[in-house]
């Protein structure tokens, strides 16, 4: 059944959108990522204008993370103070990112910037995650229980404004999480993603947070940052398509619930390998698009430059 989207001004198949939302929701529940890094390119692919895809993708991330955050809160897997620090950084970063997004759109380089960000960040993080997960799995097979040491004393611990993050069992300065938040916020606005794929590894490897609170806390931050991004896009560019969002959401919330049940059954290492492979796949696809000669060297954009 075809449906006409009022803001995107295109007619698309309703079931395609429901299915798309479902797949992304499933991944969101499974890995604790917003799924934006998949939904935005997929929306481009089915012919939604990029600006609408980015803004509406953010709105869909809000819905899928609400249900996931609620599930995580019940499990007490959210470090709320840590989430708030990341959030403050995220909102600052997102505001800056939207400004950069609009500037690059004007210059006609937004597609390139988005693709490069995807290739560089998804590619390197995917590889790092895969390497780490494979190494841990091998170690577990050998039976040696020597895990990565936590609470190592590094320069990070000498920074001021220390705060006790009880749920994470950390006593660290608020500066590193704030910087992580800003960085993720910028990427979130430019790439139209929640930023979970970069925040989760940053929390594990940079902030040394225990894995059990990482997913919940990252989702908590993503929820509010994407809500802020959605609102900003709605008032500055009028590019949020509520009809499109609703269809993606209906598919997405169902998928997210199934995903989080499924995630509870799989081993953390297996999950990480799966996520790493998925992330690498998207990066490789976008990377080859940049290298291969495009079908048509010319492209059109409505509006003056």
């Amino acid at each position, binding site marked *: *059944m*075809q*449906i*006409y989207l*009022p*803001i995107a*001004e*295109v*007619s698309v198949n309703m079931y395609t959108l429901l299915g798309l939302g479902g797949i992304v929701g499933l991944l969101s529940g499974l890995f604790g990522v917003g799924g934006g890094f998949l939904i935005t390119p997929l929306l481009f692919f089915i012919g939604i204008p990029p600006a609408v895809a980015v803004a509406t993708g953010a*709105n*869909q991330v*809000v*819905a*899928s*993370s*609400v*249900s996931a955050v*609620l*599930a995580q809160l019940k499990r007490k897997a959210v470090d709320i103070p840590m989430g708030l620090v990341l959030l403050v950084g995220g909102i600052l970063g997102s505001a800056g990112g939207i400004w950069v997004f609009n500037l690059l759109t004007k210059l*006609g*380089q937004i*597609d*390139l910037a988005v693709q490069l960000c995807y290739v560089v960040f998804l590619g390197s993080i995917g590889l790092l995650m895969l390497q780490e997960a494979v190494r841990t799995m091998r170690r577990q097979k050998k039976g040696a229980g020597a895990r990565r040491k936590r609470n190592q004393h590094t320069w990070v611990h000498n920074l001021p404004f220390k705060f006790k993050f009880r749920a994470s069992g950390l006593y660290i300065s608020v500066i590193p999480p704030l910087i992580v938040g800003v960085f993720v916020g910028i990427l979130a606005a430019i790439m139209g993603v929640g930023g979970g794929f970069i925040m989760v590894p940053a929390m594990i490897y940079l902030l040394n947070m225990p894995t059990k609170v990482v997913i919940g806390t990252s989702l908590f931050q993503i929820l509010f940052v994407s*809500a802020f991004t*959605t*609102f900003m896009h*709605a*008032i500055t560019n*009028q590019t*949020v398509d*509520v*009809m499109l*969002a*609703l269809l993606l*959401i*209906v598919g997405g*919330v*169902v998928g*997210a*619930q199934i995903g989080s049940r499924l995630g509870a059954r799989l081993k953390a290492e297996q999950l990480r390998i799966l996520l790493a492979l998925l992330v690498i796949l998207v990066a490789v696809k976008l990377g080859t698009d*940049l*290298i291969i*000669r*495009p079908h*048509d*060297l*010319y*492209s*059109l*954009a*409505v*509006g*003056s*430059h």
Partner: protein
Amino acid sequence: MMRALTRPLRLALLLALVPVFAPAQEATPQPGQEPAEQIVAGLSRDNIGITTSFDGSQILIYGAIKREAPEPANDGLAVIVTLEGPLGPVTIRRKSREFGIWVNTAALGVASAPSYYAVATSGPLKDILDPKVDVQQRISIPLAMRAFSGPVQVKDTRPFTEAMVRIRERQGLYTLETGGVRLVENTLFRADFELPANLTEGDYKTRIFLLRKGKLVDQYQSAIDVRKVGLERWLYALAHEHAAIYGLLSLALAVIAGWAAAAVFRFVR
């Protein structure tokens, strides 16, 4: 022009259509004396509502050639019908290879180009249309776009404008239908247009040109109003006129849907 249907049946069909539809609108006044041959035309509809289930639309433009005297000379008569969507600026960009990747490096701005442009003719354009008339009336597709906007920074603009036509043709937004106007007995004509699903709102200008040996004899102009209606209209207006309320509404909807799904799943378990 004769294909499957016999002549009397085709005539009857065309004539039967005429009284059913809206009365023909006034033709554009011509300077000087009245032409010997005039267009009398109508549209199957003068407005198109874009609803939620909108999936493209068909439009029929039909008419007759009115003559005070018998037909002057029975040769070179042709009819061209054009349908033009709202005009807007467009930027055409070209990629080139830089450091191994493809990057947009050159751009050309077109001040105004139609979002949709369809031309239907009763014969091959080069045979029925004098190039001078084409330039004057801007009939053929390459002439549909107007002046460049801003300083032109590319050496040759032609590949850019050609690319624009090519891309829009591929998207089904610009079409040339040779033989799309069916002319019966040099008196009655009709043209069918298939409008795509990705229509832009606005006034769609219809023009009918009556030509003899390439020269313009008469022309007729009318408009079709394409508007979003109902829920589509409401959402679009809200998003543009009350952006903050619209933004909050989208967020509220997302939060409620997310929360409701979690609640439903909890209940099911």
